[in-house]
């Protein structure tokens, strides 16, 4: 398979009040016609990588190529080959859905009749035909994301960048978008997807890079990552935090990695599920600990992330806005707005 996206030792430091090494030697390659997932928590460098690849930002060092073209030296050419749908739903609030699509088509210098036809096609494909002539102000969060994605597809890009396409969406809208993305790949488009949702990467991506603090800390297929971690996760719920701490110590020896104690829940990944379960129960029994719940399950990518980085994906490192860049503040605000707009729940659905 030819390579569609190739990134070598990419580096970018943002200078400001505090220096932030957003990209610290990132390398990866994406085969044509596949979905590549760039997985990492907030502030890990995912968006910076996408901004470099989409010619928005210049890297300090390293190279990035899209379909063989250097994104800095051949920026104008690269822009004709790519589509970008961002986490901010970068569409014009004051225009209608159709006007937004036409604007993007015109700015791609497509012939007028093609622009009009594409707008109709895309509104139809994204189930927005009825809302096509309404200003975006009246759209729901899910509709906005669909239109944002439609706008990225107006010029039929060969390589599509999706920067956290479903962050903050309700489960139904997420599912809708996932279906669209799956169809896109069926049509041969290469997709680079960033996400903090492991479920999303698991479902869509055929290969993954896990990124944290500007570095790729793991690469592979979702399956191989789960396999590396261990076959099964043993999850034990305890009546008290004290019991959980003691259980953690007991189970440490059983697992492929150290046991993780999270409140009153202890998790450990093991190779042979049933045998490990029996050994665990015996050990707990002889220590006089009675678990409240006891589960064996398949490891999720969340477990992968936890074992790689020592923290979960959804953890926000700091709540202090002073540490956030304007971009991150904007993202936080947008997520808060989206959370408010939703009838139930917030950004977590796993």
């Amino acid at each position, binding site marked *: 398979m030819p390579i569609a996206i190739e990134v070598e030792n990419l580096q970018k430091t943002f200078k400001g009040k505090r220096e932030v090494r957003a990209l610290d030697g990132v390398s990866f390659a994406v085969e044509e016609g596949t979905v590549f997932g760039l997985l990492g928590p907030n502030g890990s460098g995912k968006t910076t990588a996408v901004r470099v690849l989409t010619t928005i930002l210049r890297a300090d060092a390293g190279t990035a190529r899209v379909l063989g073209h250097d994104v800095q030296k051949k920026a*104008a050419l690269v*822009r*004709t080959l790519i589509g970008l749908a961002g986490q901010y*739903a970068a569409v014009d609030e004051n*225009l209608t859905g159709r006007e937004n699509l036409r604007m993007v088509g015109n700015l791609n210098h*497509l012939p007028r009749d093609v622009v009009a036809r594409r707008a109709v096609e895309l509104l139809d*494909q994204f189930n927005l035909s009825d809302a096509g002539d309404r200003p975006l102000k009246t759209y729901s969060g899910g509709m906005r994301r669909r239109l944002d994605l439609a706008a990225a597809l107006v010029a039929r890009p060969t390589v599509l960048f999706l920067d956290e396409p479903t962050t903050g969406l309700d489960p139904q809208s997420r599912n809708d978008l996932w*279906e669209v993305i799956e169809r896109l790949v069926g049509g041969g488009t290469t997709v680079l997807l960033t996400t903090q949702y492991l479920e999303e990467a698991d479902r869509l991506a055929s290969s993954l890079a896990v990124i944290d603090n500007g570095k790729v800390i793991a690469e592979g297929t979702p399956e191989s990552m789960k396999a590396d971690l261990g076959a099964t996760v043993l999850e034990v719920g305890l009546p008290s935090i004290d019991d959980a701490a003691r259980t953690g110590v007991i189970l440490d020896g059983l697992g492929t990695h150290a046991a993780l104690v999270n409140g009153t829940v202890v998790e450990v990944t093991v190779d042979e599920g049933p045998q490990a379960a029996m050994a665990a129960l015996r050990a707990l029994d002889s220590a006089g600990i009675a678990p409240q719940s006891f589960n064996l399950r398949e490891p999720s990518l969340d477990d992968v992330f936890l074992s790689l980085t020592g923290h979960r994906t959804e953890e926000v490192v700091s709540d202090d806005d002073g540490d956030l860049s304007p971009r991150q503040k904007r993202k936080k605000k947008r997520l808060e707005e989206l959370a408010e707009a939703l009838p139930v729940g917030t950004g977590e659905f796993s």
Partner: protein
Amino acid sequence: MTTATFAPAAPAATKSPGMASGLRWLLSDTATLTRRNLLAVTRIPEALFFSTVQPIMFVLLFRYVFGGSIHTDATSYVNYLMPGIFVQTVAFGAVSTSIGLAEDLQKGLIERFRALPMSRGAVLLGRTTADLIRNIFVITIMTIVGVLVGFRPTTGVLHYLAGIGIILLFAYALSWGFAIVGLSAPNSETAQVMSFPLIFPLTFISSAFVPVANMPSWLQGFATYQPVSVTVSACRSLMLGASSTGTGRSTGFWVVQSLAWSVVLLVVFIPLAIRKYRTRT
């Protein structure tokens, strides 16, 4: 959603822009964004209010409330007032250039534009061109309002249009200045807050509403020769004759001064705005 596939096809657009198509794209992209910005003006009620109702209120306020207490010897106060109102209106309107750009940055729209194969200069040109067109519309309305409250230009249509032209050029220069403000602000609210301290002293410490002669002497120099005042005086001279300014200067003097200001401001602001746009990440 339908089951249609999304097979990528060879893009229909030409791949590499030559010099000629580069210019053609700059013009067509500027037109696309100008249209988009003008549509926004018609769809944001606040923006429409800001650019039309507010200046009308200023006309009524100065014409009927303050006007009786302001004495102008050379011409009637309403005649004296209207050129000042025109310039004040476009000066306040220039603030919307900064707000609009800050908003586009804040919402991530400029991010999308940067990943499109469009002309790099079109974002700023589209914004300032839309503001120019909006100014033409607003000044037309203000002319009608002026005539309704007794404004009577005395020098004929050509001179009147020349006066409008002077104002529009000055407004265009201001738009580029406020583009810099908008590109420097973290959000649209801050852009607005940053803009008014710049525009207020320029419009009010000026000859726009009252003759400078009644101000304290230390203020008169600034109030007479700052760019808003010379543009008001140029416009007044063209629409009502040089004597209406009450300054003893000729029409040509003020016109040259205003044109010089506009040109200097454009020469300074355009490169700065472009640089700011390029470096803003």
